[in-house]
């Protein structure tokens, strides 16, 4: 079995702050991480590898620094890593990204493609589904569980709003995976020691068979008109108590937070 996992390097949005005047993300000093849903996807691929035997290739499109998440993936247990990097890819929206990735995937052999559901910096959840359309293969999005149940056959549990769907998929397909369902393993120490001895293949726009008009800014119909923070509000806690108990509760909470 051959699996390709598409991963993305994203700013850790849990520590990102928003410029209060410009309304844009302040990316300076924010650590870059492997997108959590993608890491969940890699975990699923590595479980397939352990259970059934598989060659797991990770691919990312991004600047040269994105090498870091490929090394992390190798240290977790991926076999091969490809960095798709070229100035011609810059400014890509989801369509141009999925076009470039489809070109790369056409150069590779695979039975399954696994993507994260969405990236925490854009939250579009579009690249995986678009990719399967470019490649003309079946897709299952919002995957909460998957197992191999026969030759070229998967049983996939898909999360929907108020429950789950259980699907059987035959043949090549693309899955988009939820981080919450696949707690990723830690990197292994021996894997870390080897990660920088392994080769990360560098592919450019010339390595893939996609016309330039479909790549980067040129291939991107989306324009961002405006970014703005939606305002942060904590979820709060609900207590059903009498007014007297409420006073005690409020006072104790304020004390807990050293406000009084």
């Amino acid at each position, binding site marked *: 079995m051959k699996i390709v996992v598409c991963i993305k390097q994203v700013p850790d949005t849990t520590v990102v702050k928003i410029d209060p005047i410009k309304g844009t993300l302040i990316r300076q000093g924010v650590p870059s991480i492997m997108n959590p849903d993608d890491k969940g996807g890699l975990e699923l691929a590595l479980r397939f590898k352990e259970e059934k035997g598989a060659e797991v290739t990770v691919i990312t499109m991004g600047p040269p620094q994105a090498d870091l998440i490929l*090394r992390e993936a190798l*240290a977790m247990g991926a076999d091969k890593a490809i960095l798709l990097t070229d100035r011609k890819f810059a400014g890509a929206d989801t369509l141009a990204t999925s076009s470039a990735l489809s070109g790369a995937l056409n150069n590779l052999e695979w039975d399954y493609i696994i993507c994260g559901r969405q990236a925490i910096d854009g939250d579009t959840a579009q690249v995986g589904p678009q990719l399967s359309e470019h490649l003309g293969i079946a897709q299952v999005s919002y995957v909460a569980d998957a197992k191999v149940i026969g030759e070229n056959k998967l049983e996939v549990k898909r999360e929907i709003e108020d429950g789950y769907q259980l699907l059987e998929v035959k043949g090549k397909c693309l899955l988009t995976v939820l981080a919450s369902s696949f707690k990723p393993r830690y*990197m*292994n*120490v*021996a894997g*870390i020691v080897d990660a*920088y001895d392994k080769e990360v293949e560098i592919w450019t726009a010339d390595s893939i068979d996609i016309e330039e008009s479909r790549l980067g800014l040129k291939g991107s119909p989306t324009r961002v008109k405006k970014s703005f923070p939606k305002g942060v509000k904590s979820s709060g806690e609900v207590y059903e108590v009498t007014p007297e108990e409420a006073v005690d509760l409020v006072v104790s909470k304020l004390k807990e937070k*050293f406000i009084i």
Partner: protein
Amino acid sequence: MDFNLTKSQELFRQMIREFAENEVKPLAAEIDEQERFPRETVEKMAKLGLMGIPLPKEYGGAGGDNIMYTIAVEEISKFCATTGVVLSAHTSLCIAPILEHGTEEQKNKYLPKLGSGEWVGAFGLTEPNAGTDASAQQTTAVLDGEEWVLNGNKIFITNSGEANVYVISAMTDKSKGVKGISTFIVEGDSPGFQVGKHELKLGIRGSATAELIFTNCRIPKDNILGKVGSGFKIAMQTLDGGRVGIAAQALGIAQGAMDEVVAYTKERKQFGRSISKFQNTQFVLADLDTRIEASRLLVRKAAFCKDQHIRFSTEAAMAKLFAAETAVAVTNKAIQFFGGYGYTREYPVERMMRDAKITEIYEGTSEVQRMVIAGNLFK
């Protein structure tokens, strides 16, 4: 000259930080409170290769370096000094002497099991009457046919009862003084070997510290480590390495307390403003943070020297002396900034202060470290 970690070391730090935060931190208060060995954490560390970080791959280790190892002990000890010393004693005091002084047979027999974490290791030198004066060993080993017969007691042994392999010093020829000491590999199920009473301690309370009792304990003749009479030298070399591990543990405790106190003083308001805005807070913490960074540089330098096979006794002594005294100072001040809250077990700084003290005592007291440093100065 390059102060940066290598890319592999950076990646390792990323991993160990996640591991410490998710797996070590949640258990720290519990194992202290229950005085319980963190067996489940040891199993998790084993699975990831953390029980054999600087052990070469040919012996079943991860093939990492001593910088990575000290980063691991530091990051783990930020949250739990108990788990830090379990790893340190296992790696520096048991794996290292077998790797450095063992025969090929001994290495092949013991290192893969220790490196994979299937077995835990320990080291026994201290006796009731031989602490800082390690040459006053009273435990004896006598060759009887194909076996060594050990008699005597070792005390305050880390990982006691939890370990499967013990590296033990014993007198083989009393007339020769320190040159009459030899080192042995003793398996935990050897006949005549017994683990005594567990100590109730001020800090690192989850660490298993006990007496080892040898009553006509018989081990195979081949289980002598190094040559007959080389035990004192092996013990001193082993402790040089161990001190780097304990220095990293002390550094971790200090950093952990600093992280807590910075977060708390920003949050805590008195006289209408955060106590972090007061100059006393800022100046005291600035001095302590400087000492923490100096400790880190000393630890890294000692680990670097060990990796480069440069003699590092003085570096190890300086790192341990400075980091241990820093840990005690930082944790003490941390409680002061927390005030009454810091004195309670609701906050981790209370435990950190109790844990810090041992780093000035074990694997050579601060006074011993000064003796080592002065010995080098006036040689």
